């Protein structure tokens, strides 16, 4: 008979990623690079919001962008064409999120000399990206009006880890039953410290407030 032996492990599966993430955060801090992790569901306007934000900030900060998707490079090209800044595409090979190791690989592919702000546009998904720390300095997420105000109730982890929540597509509010006050209340139920900023990436309304939030956060982080 084969000998059977039990080896006790008692270790969270997220532990090794959390260690990687903390190391990466430290390295970035030493290099003076602020890493923003931007999350949302697909189609909520991450790329359009980024283009507006980058165009407001590119004279003040040196910015680089990593676009993560399962496939295609449309987002990276869109960012480059619309802002002229450095932008690369990361493919996750079917995975629904980025972890610290993948983020590190992305950063290694960028020209980081002089960069103050690196932005990671995570895979469009409200579940998995919230569970995997990317080593970022701050987390931002976008909830768009057509998705509905109840999302903080349905995806609690995502909203509890975000430092700022942008409510996008404010221009279509008259066509949807979306209660901004209620939505803000739900966000704060998950995370009392999260800042809520209503924006419209298409018209640019409110994006200046997000840009200012980023500038303030970078200043405080330094």
């Amino acid at each position, binding site marked *: 008979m084969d000998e059977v032996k*039990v*080896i*006790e*492990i008692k270790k*969270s599966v997220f532990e*090794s990623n959390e260690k990687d993430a903390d190391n990466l955060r430290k390295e970035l801090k030493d290099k003076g690079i602020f890493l923003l992790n931007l999350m949302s569901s697909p189609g909520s306007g991450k790329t359009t919001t980024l283009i507006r934000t980058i165009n407001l900030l590119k004279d003040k900060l040196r910015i680089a962008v990593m676009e993560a998707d399962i496939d295609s490079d449309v987002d990276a090209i869109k960012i480059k064409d619309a802002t002229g800044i450095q932008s690369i595409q990361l493919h996750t090979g*079917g995975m*629904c999120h980025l972890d610290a190791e993948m983020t590190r690989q992305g950063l290694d592919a960028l020209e980081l000399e002089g960069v103050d702000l690196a932005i990671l546009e995570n895979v469009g998904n409200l579940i998995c990206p919230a569970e995997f720390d990317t080593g970022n300095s701050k987390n931002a997420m976008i909830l768009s009006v057509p998705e509905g105000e109840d999302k903080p109730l349905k995806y609690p982890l995502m909203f509890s880890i975000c430092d700022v929540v942008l409510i996008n597509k404010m221009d279509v509010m008259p066509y949807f039953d979306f209660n901004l006050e209620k939505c803000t209340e739900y966000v704060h139920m998950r995370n009392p410290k999260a800042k809520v900023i209503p924006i419209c990436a298409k018209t640019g309304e409110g994006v200046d407030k997000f840009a200012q939030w980023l500038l303030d956060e970078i200043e405080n982080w330094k």
Partner: protein
Amino acid sequence: MHELGIVFYIIRDVKEVARENNVDKVKTVVMDIGEVSTIIPDYLTDCWRWAADKEDLLRGCELKINTTPAMTYCEDCGNEYSTAQHGKKCPHCGSDRTYLLRGNEVEIKEIIV
């Protein structure tokens, strides 16, 4: 897709433990998974079968899942209650000043070799 990512992490950790202990075949991996961890056990075992069979160390290895109950603590009345039944609002006093004590863990408990 979410479960597949978790499976890759489990494999990475188990391989490391196996290497440290000079193990060349793992029979069973036992997981403790919280009730509110958002992991669906069936999906996890399906992904596990697909990915584990690609590894010599883990071919045929069973993934056993223990579900651990989720409990929430109320800061206002000091009671503990079942998160899955009552959610964020305390059933004893109605307060929502509550926090999760346990039940969102995804832990590798042990391996049987």
